[in-house]
């Protein structure tokens, strides 16, 4: 593998981590969804680049799935949901942006240290890719933990799935079944969570899951 292909793959995976960081400090829902769409576009690019350098044509399908569903269908759907719910003006972070960013930096460091330690013999590209993928997964979890709104938790969950796809495509020889199942699981999760949002909304007149806690008589 020559230096340029490696650098480009590295650049794409790295920018995915960067966009995950951008998600951490978006406190408006529309902005968050836009950043997520960007995330999916970069993921599609990264997967396509992997398909090109691995000469694995089935990965183009994965890239197309990522582009169509995650970058277009789901963000558009979420936009419409937010408009219908009328929550586009909500500002909703449970933890301040500063601490969240610091925690994110810590998580990325952790995944770098861990991955570079446990995979000394692996192919350097796969190694870096795995480290980035783990960072994206952890940042996605962090988004889910630091948000109070159900919509942004959905977004966090899907960015986590993006990390999984990145990990799956970074290693050579992964069968297509895996990616299709991952893509479908996200779609299904999106549908299910969408339905749940409406049910929550119907019952509590809000998608703030804090309302659920109030309903159970719990303190926040």
């Amino acid at each position, binding site marked *: 593998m020559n230096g340029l292909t490696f650098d480009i793959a590295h650049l794409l995976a790295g920018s995915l981590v960067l966009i995950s960081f951008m998600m951490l400090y978006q406190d408006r829902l529309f902005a968050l969804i836009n950043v997520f769409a960007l995330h999916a576009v970069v993921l599609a690019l990264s997967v396509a680049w992997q398909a090109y350098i691995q000469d694995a044509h089935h990965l183009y399908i994965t890239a197309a799935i990522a582009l169509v569903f995650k970058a277009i269908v789901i963000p558009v759907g979420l936009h419409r949901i937010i408009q219908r719910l009328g929550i586009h003006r909500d500002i909703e972070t*449970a933890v301040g942006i500063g601490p969240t960013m610091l925690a994110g930096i810590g*998580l990325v460091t*952790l*995944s770098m*240290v*861990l991955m570079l*330690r*446990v995979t000394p013999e692996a192919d350097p590209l796969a190694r870096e890719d795995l480290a980035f993928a783990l960072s994206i997964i*952890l940042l996605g*979890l*962090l988004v*889910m*933990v630091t948000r*109070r709104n159900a919509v942004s938790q959905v977004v966090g969950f899907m960015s986590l799935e993006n990390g999984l796809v990145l990990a799956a495509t970074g290693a050579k020889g992964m069968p297509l079944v895996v990616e299709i199942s991952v893509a479908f699981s996200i779609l299904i999760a999106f549908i299910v969570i969408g339905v749940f949002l409406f049910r929550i909304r119907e019952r509590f007149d809000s998608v703030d*899951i*804090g309302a*659920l*806690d109030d309903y*159970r008589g*719990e303190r*926040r």
Partner: protein
Amino acid sequence: MSTVALLLCGPAALLATAILAAAISRLAAATRLVYGAALFISAALLATVAGHLAGNPGEVSAVTLPLGLPWTGARFRLDGLSAFFLVVVNLGGSITSLYGLGYGRHEATPRRVLPFYPAFLAGMNLVVLANDAFSFLLCWEFMSLASWALVMAHHRDEANRRAGYIYLVMASFGTLALLLAFGLLAGPAGTYAFDAMRTAHPGPFAAGAVLVLMLLGAGSKAGLVPLHAWLPLAHPAAPSHVSALMSGIMTKVAIYGFIRVVFDLLGEPAWWSGVAVILIGGVTAVLGILHALMEKDLKRLLAYSTIENIGVIFASLGLALAFKANAMPSAAALAFTAALFHVLNHSFFKSLLFFGAGAVLTATGERDMEKLGGLIHRLPVTSFVFLVGCVSISALPPFNGFASEWLVFQAILRSPELPQWGLKVIVPAVGGMLALSAALAAACFVKAFGITFLGRARSAAVERAHEVDRWSLAAMAVLAAFCLLAGILPGFVIDGLSPVALSLVGDRMPVQIAEPWLSIVPIAESRSSYNGLLVFAFITISASLAAFFIHRFASHAVRRGIAWGCGFVDAVPAAQYTAVSFAQPIRRVFGGFAFRARETVDIPAPGALEPARLKVDMHDLAWEIFYQPITGAIDFATERLNHLQFLTIRRYLTLVFLYLVILLLVLALWP
């Protein structure tokens, strides 16, 4: 068809009977059908094993069924050891079914007993045949659950529910220990077939851990102190014939598990493993019988006495381990044969005694000895066979208990030849404990028989008692005959056990049938020999002569009663010796350290009219030392963890996230 495949048809038929029983249990004829089928199948299994043993006892036959773990399969195997235990299980099973034909008719809710009874028998048969860890554990759990269902047969009683709960907890704990033991035996390669475990010898640390886990796992099922707590609660709670199966047979299946792993799969033992087993056996024997002596409930007394006998068997097995580790195969064969002989004997007389207790329960509705008494006039046959059981379990010649306990002591007497000083000191000390427990057992069964059957009736129920049905009497008579036969012809049993000893400890006892006059000579003629037949003949003749002389000559003498009747006061029956008062001297001697017993006498002031009171305060130390701290700790921890159930969704997510991060951190920082 190989023998083991033929034998597997038996449990399959029993399971089919169980399903059938669940379907027809409301019919009137169901009791007779189910017990009849169980009797037939057990007898067929017994005949198959007997045919196998008569034909080619050394032959090993194995089969692998395409069930269970995908790369191991369900393996079953018949060798000398499993053949012996199959004989114990199916002999006990068939006689118990015979008893059940009569006893089961008095069952108030037969649909709670009938489906589980054949399933329980099937489970015990399968455990003995299993040849891989997965099938073994599965069958073991099946056996435990079936017996648990039988313990819960009379679940309306609060005490039975508690017994069932404690039994379930202890059974799960035991299975967990077995699971871990098999995990260690399987090693990193994860070979769960016994054949593979037999060739892979674990290191000394792993072997020690397996021994401890087997003592916990098999010991909790068999009733080793301090894991015995469930046994005196659960065994009496079941219907009496099931109590007989649990006490007489299921504890033996636990011993089978212990022997299979420690003698067969684990390879060469270390000498200290013998020490551990001998000590636990000795302590179990003494504490078991002391508890039995303090008991006034007949079935609980029998259950505690089971603990004592298990202690004797384990002490003998420990001796066999110690001799085997020191390359003394002939002594090891002696101790091992003694243990197996006692297994067989205990299955006979404990089943007999539980049947007797069941007969008393049927006739009077009472288990409390303080309300019985004088039953020898009402239940003459039951009294006689119960007496045979009492004499056997008290290890009096010429019955079978003596023969096997005598062999155990012969093995103990070979301990000075052991090289380690630790064993030289401990084995005679445990010998003393076993002798003590044998003497206490005799006292205990004098009490059990004397208070229950002799004297005068202590309650109205006893006055109305009638002899039980013929099926029950036949079952008890068969067992009494076995007790006598095994006692006067022990040589045949010992020779029958020789292939097992040869395969597991590498030697056998000398051939006994060839000895003149059917004597048994465990080591050499010059050291010791015992002739049960001779003792039996002597006892019979001298007793008959004594009886003849007394009745012929003594009764003619004129007797005059004293006017004030101080010799035998015709007072209320409550003034007789009671179970508690009989045990009082022993409680005075041993109660202080064994039960922390304290007596307080409360005498009213002179002139006051209320009665004086004697209050005895006793503690079950095993319960207080081992169980209460554990339950306390669990209560404390669950109390603390309870509020984790009521967190918000985001907090749960945070917990999962933090846990993941900590896990990754540990992985990153691990040296």
